[in-house]
C-alpha cells in the first residue's frame, strides 16, 4: 500500500486529493500505467507526462525512479511559487 497525492489540476482531474493504492509497481512509470488502466480520469490526468512532476516521500524525483521503500508518491504540474 502506498499513499498517492495529487495537486492542482492533477487533483482536479482525478477528483481526489489523495488515496491509498494497492500496488506492486516497481517504478513510478509502472504505477502511472496501473492508474491509467483503471479509469479515464487517470488517463486524462496522466496523458502528458512531460507536463507532470513527481515527488517520492516529499522529494522531487523522476518517472523512472524505483518505488522500493517509498510510502508517499505525489503527482503535480510544474510548480508556480514565489
Amino acid at each position, binding site marked *: 500500500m502506498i499513499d498517492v*497525492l495529487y*495537486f*492542482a*489540476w492533477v*487533483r482536479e482531474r482525478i477528483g481526489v486529493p489523495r488515496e491509498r493504492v494497492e500496488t506492486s509497481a516497481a517504478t513510478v512509470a509502472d504505477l502511472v500505467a496501473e492508474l491509467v488502466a483503471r479509469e479515464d480520469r487517470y488517463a486524462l490526468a496522466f496523458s502528458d507526462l512531460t507536463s507532470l512532476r513527481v*515527488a517520492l516521500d*516529499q*522529494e*522531487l524525483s523522476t518517472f523512472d525512479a524505483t518505488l522500493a521503500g517509498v510510502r508517499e508518491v*505525489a503527482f*503535480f*504540474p*510544474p*510548480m*508556480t*511559487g*514565489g
Partner: protein
Amino acid sequence: MRLSIQAEPFDFGAESASFAASAAALGAGAVVTFCGIVRDNDGILTEMQIEHYPGMTEKAVASMLDQAMVRWDLVDALVIHRHGRLVKGDIIMMVATASPHRAAAFAAADYLMDYLKSRAPFWKKEHARGDAVWVDAAPQDEAALDRW
C-alpha cells in the same frame, strides 16, 4: 534562519525591520529583501488561490535556505510564503538575506527566488470572470535555474 508557510497575511514592513535589526546585531552589512505581489494584468482578477503540499513545502524551502546559507556564507535568511486565498495587491511571499557584503546578499535572494518559483510545491490558480485557470510555469523560470 526562519521559514513560515502560512495562510495568514504578514507584515512585510515589520518583518523587514526585524530581520534587518537582528542581522545588524549579527554583523551583517547588507540586507536584501524581495516581496511578491498579486498582479492583475487584465483588470479582471477576482482572486488567486495558492495550493501547496504541506510537509514537502517546508522541507523544500528549508533545503533552499540551507543551500543559500552555506553557498553565500550568509548571516541570516528568511522565507515567508502564503497559501490559500489572495486578492490583487496582496503580498504573496517574501525573502530576506543578510551578509557582510552586498554581492552575496543579492545573489542569495535571487537564487532563493528562482528556486521558490520552480522547486517549491506551490501552484497558483487565478479566478476571473467566473473562470479559474491554473497559472502555467514560465519557461524562463525553469531556465533561470541554470544560472546557479
